């Protein structure tokens, strides 16, 4: 059948609805090219491509620039070594290129930040979503997001000039060093509270009212309805929020550069110095290490490790959201 029903002289022999009218039904228009639409399409495609190419470019630079580093340094020594001092002359006794102290520094600060941000952020999210009157929510949520906008250099000095003295006066100056992982981690925790709170609040809010009512109708108290129904239903969103915040903490640079010290160590003492990867990169880039030196090359190797870790965190977040998404 080549003609459409309703086209003049319909092949099915059914007279068109307004048969008898002078021209029959108006024919469908011919396909038209719309140049404006094409241009917009290309523009959008270009934007999408640029962002993808940029990402690939960054990865490529990290990889290519770290290749010369691994010409000088054993990969196994890099991954498993527990001492980091690439500033010495390669081959000398002091020269050591184990990345683990830096990784440890990053993980400790991130763990402290999450230990602060997850309880605070979750409590804030539950309060805002379930308990706060709508007026309070409308006022508090933007205010919370202002906290996310505080420049990290300000937070860094806040850690150094307020949090550290506070910890020292509470726990004693002999326990808490001037530069330490704890105050950097705590302040970084404050920084990521808004991420956890805001995204978790969205997840809680997305839980249908009908589920809450179902719980109440079974004789649940508000607390039980929240803990046993609402939070579990929102769990994938909450986990994604936490992992996103973790990615932010892994990459945070300014606070740790200012407040966590510049000594990479393997100690688990959170009140001692513990330089994270970002701290090392910032410190070294700011200093003068000649292009082509081992220290310069090590920047890219450390950057690649950091990138791998944040990439992993984000991938896990994606996976969690997909795997545990509750279709209500």
């Amino acid at each position: 059948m080549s003609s459409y029903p309703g086209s003049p002289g319909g092949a099915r022999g059914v007279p068109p609805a307004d048969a008898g009218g002078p021209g029959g039904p108006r024919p469908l228009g011919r396909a038209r090219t719309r140049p404006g639409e094409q241009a917009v399409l290309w523009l959008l495609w270009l934007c999408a491509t640029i962002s993808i190419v940029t990402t690939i470019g960054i990865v490529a630079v990290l990889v290519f620039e770290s290749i010369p580093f691994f010409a000088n340094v054993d990969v196994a020594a890099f991954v498993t070594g527990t001492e980091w001092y690439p500033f010495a002359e390669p081959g000398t006794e002091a020269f050591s290129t184990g990345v683990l102290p830096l990784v440890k520094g990053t993980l400790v600060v991130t763990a402290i930040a999450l230990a602060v941000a997850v309880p605070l952020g979750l409590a804030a999210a539950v309060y805002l979503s379930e308990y706060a009157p709508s007026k309070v929510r409308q006022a508090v949520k933007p205010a919370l997001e202002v906290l996310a906008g505080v420049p990290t250099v300000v937070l860094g000095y806040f850690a150094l000039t307020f949090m550290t003295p506070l910890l020292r006066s509470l726990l004693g100056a002999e326990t808490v060093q001037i530069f330490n992982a704890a105050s950097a981690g705590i302040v970084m925790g404050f920084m990521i509270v808004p991420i956890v709170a805001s995204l978790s609040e969205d997840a809680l809010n997305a839980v249908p009212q009908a589920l809450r009512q179902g719980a109440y109708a079974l004789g649940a108290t508000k607390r039980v309805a929240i803990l046993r129904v609402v939070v579990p239903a929102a769990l994938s969103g909450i986990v994604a929020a936490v992992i996103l915040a973790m990615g932010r903490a892994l990459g945070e640079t300014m606070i740790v550069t200012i407040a966590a010290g510049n000594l990479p160590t393997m100690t688990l003492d959170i009140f001692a110095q513990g330089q994270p990867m970002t701290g090392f990169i910032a410190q070294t880039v700011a200093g003068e290490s000649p292009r082509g030196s081992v220290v310069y090359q090590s920047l890219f190797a450390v950057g690649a490790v950091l990138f791998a870790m944040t990439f992993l965190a984000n991938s896990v977040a994606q996976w969690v959201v997909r795997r545990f998404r509750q279709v209500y």
Partner: protein
Amino acid sequence: MQQSRAETGTPIPAPAPAAAPAGEPAPTGATEIFQLRGLTCRYGGFTAVRDISLDIQRNEITAIIGPSGCGKSTLLRCLNRMNDLVEGTRVTGEVIYNGEDIYAPHIDPVEVRRRIGMVFQEPNPFPKSIYDNVAFGPKLEGHRSDLDDIVESSLRQAALWDEVKGKLKQSALSLSGGQQQRLCIARALAVEPDVILMDEPASALDPIATLRIEDLMEELKRSYSIVIVTHNMQQAARISDKTAFVTVRVENETDERTGELVEFDDTTRIFTAAADQRTEDYVTGRFG
């Protein structure tokens, strides 16, 4: 234990009414489960239903019918204080349940909802396993060792057991809409309520699933009292013992639309010999 109760067919013994404060009229009889006296419900400044008085009998199915927006759901939610959860709701008048006004200040609404269960218009299973959905209420009451039995007997009562016995650990959301609704009924039965309130429980279901739910209600009324809101005249005529017809009265000056009880009687009378012309118009489909 639920099973034995269903088998013997004895009505749930009315929980002994707490000693009524002096001056309050003694409960008029053991056959009434609810006595509504001048019940009015307002959302903010808007009066949704006004001055409803009627008696609901134990072990009967009572249907509430009426045009959309007349306040049927509102009325139903007043019976187990679900309206407390809506900000700005005010309820006046009395809802006397087993001789006690559930809106009296000393009454705990959580306890009220435990005795008076509710099934909603849309199936709303929790995003948990089938088992956990049914076990949710009993767990709140501290049941631990006998959970398996409660889950099984509740699912049997809801006529769902045979379909799900092999997959209790699967997500409740994998069930069909009709199965989900029966799961919600099982979930409500598992806490052994006294009354089950149903708000258009079959509106999202096909005719066969609807009939299954209706059969189920016939079964359940031996052990429970049921109040059901429905848009479906045949359904009300088929299953209910008593029918309440609620409609909207539009205030001419203020254009306020308030739900009012027009008539409450045996279902057969409502459908064959209604006393009020508006009822007859509505049940015969002549409603404007």
